């Protein structure tokens, strides 16, 4: 037992653990639709697709240090791209994905331009304006968008060979899109572009002195972020089969941002937790109070931020860190036991200094959460 604990902090153990976690998560994710009722599978599907949007927003807000209150608009743009293509041109579902992604990337590039001149609250205001003005615009463009009636299109249908029900097939398609998206986001962050993005967030002038093009990377952050939101929107159309301007009011943008913050900014799996929060908590709130679910939802957000100021992901990391330290302390030889347990801040029993530090940001990236 103690040898297992002693190797907990090492590199190999970390990699092994990461592989095991991945396998476990994959197994659960793949088997889930066969154990749950169709409606629950649908809810899971929605969690996955919101997670894509949140991962995109995370690139911009969490890792890029910018802000957007208008991501619902990119989501809507992706959704409408898919709906219009399916409705008017009768392309297959799959064809809509690259178009929505590329379209939103370009839209994001365009939107990155004001981001170069504005920051903080000013940027928030401009992006909010985008989210506010899009639904009326969609209503006006009736010949293409179907106006306030919206568009009804085909949902994803399972091919005969799969033998799956519609909800299961949809779930798996969305799971695949989400997995690829999250992987892409992760690799993006570890690439040269991602490093530059983080450097700009950390210290703009130092990044510039090192030759990082601020304008390029800030704009790119917007573009990538919009791409993910667009992909999520496109998949939304596949799942729901209906889009209308009212589905994408500016409340969606606020909800996305709230979900991200609750889930955990600048965390790789924060978007998943945030998406689950956004998906499930409103219905929990509904159960608690029929009259004012919004109030309960808001109170729950406040409660989470109070308990976990770094979001649910940060809370999970902290709990795991404490658990690991407890484990190490209780399993190290008796010599330490007669030490008064009050004097623990410097944690003497941990084997070597680097290992102790390594034990903190267990899990995904070598990059620790912001405190």
């Amino acid at each position, binding site marked *: 037992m103690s040898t297992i604990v002693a190797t907990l902090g090492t590199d190999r153990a970390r990699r092994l653990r990461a592989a095991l976690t991945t396998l476990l998560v994959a197994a659960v994710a793949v088997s889930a639709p066969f154990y749950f009722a169709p409606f629950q599978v649908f809810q899971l599907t929605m969690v996955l697709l919101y997670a894509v949007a949140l991962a995109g927003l995370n690139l911009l807000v969490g890792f890029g240090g910018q802000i957007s209150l208008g991501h619902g608009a990119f989501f809507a743009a992706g959704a409408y791209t898919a709906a219009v293509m399916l409705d008017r041109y009768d392309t297959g579902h799959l064809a809509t994905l690259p178009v929505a992604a590329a379209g939103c990337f370009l839209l994001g590039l365009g939107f990155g331009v004001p981001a170069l001149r504005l920051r903080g609250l000013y940027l928030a205001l401009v992006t909010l304006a985008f989210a506010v003005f899009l639904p009326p615009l969609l209503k006006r463009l009736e010949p293409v968008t179907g106006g306030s009636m919206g568009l009804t299109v085909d949902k994803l249908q399972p091919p005969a060979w799969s033998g799956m029900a519609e909800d299961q097939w949809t779930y798996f398609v969305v799971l695949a899109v989400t997995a690829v998206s999250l992987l892409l986001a992760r690799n993006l962050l570890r690439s040269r572009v991602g490093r530059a993005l983080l450097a700009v967030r950390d210290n703009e002038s130092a990044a510039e*002195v090192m030759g990082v093009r601020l304008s390029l990377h800030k704009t790119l952050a917007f573009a990538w972020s919009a791409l993910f939101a667009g992909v999520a929107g496109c998949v939304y159309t596949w799942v729901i089969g209906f889009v209308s301007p009212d589905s994408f009011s500016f409340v969606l943008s606020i909800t996305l941002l709230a979900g991200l913050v609750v889930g955990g900014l600048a965390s790789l799996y924060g978007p998943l937790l945030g998406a689950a929060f956004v998906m499930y908590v409103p219905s929990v709130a509904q159960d608690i109070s029929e009259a004012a679910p919004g109030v309960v939802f808001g109170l729950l957000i406040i409660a989470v931020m109070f308990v976990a100021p770094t979001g649910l992901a940060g809370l999970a990391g902290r709990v795991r860190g404490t658990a690991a330290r407890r484990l190490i302390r209780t399993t190290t030889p008796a010599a330490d036991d007669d030490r008064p347990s009050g004097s623990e801040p410097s944690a003497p029993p941990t084997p070597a200094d680097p290992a102790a530090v*390594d034990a903190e940001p267990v899990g995904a990236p070598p990059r620790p959460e912001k405190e």
Partner: protein
Amino acid sequence: MTEPTTDSTEAGQVNAEPDFLKVAGLHAGYGQARVLQGLDFSVARGEVCAILGPNGAGKTTTLRALCGMVRGRGSVTLNGTELLGRSPEQTARLGVAHVPEGRGTFNDLTVEENLRIGAHVRTGRWRRGSAERVAVAADLERIYDYFPKLRQRSRQAAGSLSGGEQQMLAIGRALMLRPALLLLDEPSLGLAPLVTRELFEIVRAVNEEERTTVVVVEQNAQLALDVAHRAHVLEAGRLLLSGPSREIREDGQVAEVYLGVSVRSAKDGGAP
């Protein structure tokens, strides 16, 4: 104008390119405040040059003007290329690496990621793919050899390092650029004397092994003069004194400047 003639006399014995970095008539400031009022000096290739002077003399502003963080008038050429009027990002691409005052490390990134940001401009182009990547990996090792402490901490967040280690990281990051010109702004700021000495020894080693031209701004004149070949003393945005470090150290004027006594030499009096 101070006379430039004293500049290129003794450094010439080491060097064929006395005007590798040439600053002529440099004016710079922040908004209304004009800090530099016509500065002239040259730095030879492969030389370590110290810029000394009391607080507010314009030392930091000089460095910022060289790397483009502050707009300047006049002329600054590096190996014949004009640097003024370029952004910091452009001067970095021309090989100017600036280690800003207060280090400017990226605290949420790991040590290694910080170093890789240093090589950002080298890995930009598609066509320079794999060969450059190998070179960057080799440079990373080289930096770790200079700063073994950074190797130990390569996966730690830069924010968790001590002040001295962060300064090492900032210098290492700048070296990853393979700079033609390394600008160091107050490397001793907030560090223990022993750590500062260690840092300067490394700067000397880097200069000797890589032949990197270094301009260092420093409050600790004694230390800077130990490492530098030449020194320029600023006062109130003007050049007060230039010469080989040995001479500057023996010159009584320096002490007076650092004591805050305004010494107006004859040559300085002629400036407008």
